[in-house]
């Protein structure tokens, strides 16, 4: 008998809030002002997805849950937790860059690409950083990747002098539909 495809339901979650705040602080040296007035929700599927919703959205979600209606997505999508590791979303990256632009605060692990490098990166291809000022690191730190206009292009990791895309805005074209 064919099984009906289930869709995730979002519910309030503290675990998600802690994960995101830790990520912002440890990875980018940012406090939780990036996500001010956020109410944290998660869904529980194979990977836990995290959302930041406003108070009106929270009240609607609570009403939907009470009426056995299962919301699928809400507010700002922050990312997902896989094997206890937080994987940030494109929306969170954009939110961080917007916060940095607005406040003038510097974010750690922000990598600026040339236009040519930026195009390669948004095709999901690796980018050689040999000509870049960025030091070659051996850790698994996640980098905020922007272009010369400081527009958010995605998340990447650096290995052996090359930047690899973890998630880039080309995803919207390749997989987002």
């Amino acid at each position, binding site marked *: 008998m064919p099984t009906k*495809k289930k*869709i995730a339901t979002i519910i309030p979650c503290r675990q998600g809030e802690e994960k995101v705040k830790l990520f912002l602080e440890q990875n980018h040296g940012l406090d939780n002002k990036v996500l001010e007035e956020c109410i944290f929700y998660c869904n529980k599927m194979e990977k836990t997805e995290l959302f*930041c*919703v*406003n108070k*009106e*959205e929270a*009240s*609607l*979600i609570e*009403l*939907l849950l*009470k*009426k*056995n*209606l*299962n*919301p*699928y*997505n*809400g*507010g*700002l*999508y922050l990312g997902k937790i896989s094997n206890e590791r937080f994987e940030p*979303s*494109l*929306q969170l990256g*954009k*939110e961080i860059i917007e916060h940095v632009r607005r406040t003038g605060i510097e974010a750690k692990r922000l990598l600026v690409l040339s236009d040519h490098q*930026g*195009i390669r990166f*948004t095709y999901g291809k690796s980018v050689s950083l040999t000509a870049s000022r960025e030091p070659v690191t051996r850790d698994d730190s996640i980098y905020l990747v922007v*272009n010369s206009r400081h*527009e*958010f292009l995605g998340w990447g990791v650096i290995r052996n002098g090359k930047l690899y895309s973890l998630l880039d*805005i*080309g995803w*919207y*074209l390749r*997989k*987002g*539909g």
Partner: protein
Amino acid sequence: MREYDSIFELKISSKALKIASRYSYLPYMIERYMRIFPEDELIEFLDKVEEGVPRSIRCNTLLLEDCRLLVERLEERGFELEQTGILSYAYRVVNESGSLGSTIEHLLGYYYIQGIGSMLTSVLLSPREGEFVADLASAPGGKTTHMAQIMNNKGCILSVDKSLARVKKLRSNIQRMHVKNTVVLRKDILRITGLEEFFDKVLLDAPCTGEGLIVFKKERKTSRTMDDLRKMSGLQIQLLEKAMELLKPGGTLLYSTCSIAPEENEYVLSNVLSRRDDIEVLPTRYGRVGSPGIVEYNNTVFHDDMRKCLRVYPHRDGMEGFFYCLLRKR
């Protein structure tokens, strides 16, 4: 039998057959257009459909303070844009030098490819910051993301669609356009219970046969039958009744379709209005754009308030065909 069902009875004239053959339409469509437009205007309409209208984009003011920067960037890439004069952030793409959906600016969420007729729905409903709004049958998200833009990402939109594949596209567009005030629900709206009288505003851009999109999709000239119109209008009546349930007393609902078929518009509304006394039709106008709704068609007289509704046509308004009608729940 529903009221006004006489609109589905159609005799096809030899003249309609001749024009249908010349422009490659199913004859019943031409017969209906002969009852909507005077003869010279009918030809003008058919010629405009052949010519087509340019695609258009909506600049995302959630991410860009000045849309001229977007115009400059796209023009540097060889696109030619023209301000619509209808919405300050809407542009016609009069010359496409490449794929409009794969520029970096599109991936950055700086614009949404959307017909001007489609953009007008969100503007006519005019949601405000802090309101609770429902967008029923919402995927892929053009109207939801536009309403979020108008609401400045404040308040809350419930965006509903019943197809999983479409809901995934909706979510992708919500994220790309950096919309933050939307809750997505995958559900058949006819099966929603428990949200009665909750919303300040409701947008029902009803599923339709897409007769207004014929300027973009020429296959529509032969792809739908009169029976499809009859079936679709039955669903639209059910959806409108359901949408009214979700609306607060005093709240506003916009019924719209991307169809110019009276069967999917004035017929649907007249049927619902004839059974209920808690709905008021509001004047639906946007400057000098569009024409009033149809009151008489194919020997049938619709509800008199249909003249308050709004129709747009490619040959008169330079955009895809659309129908809009604002309703208030008493």
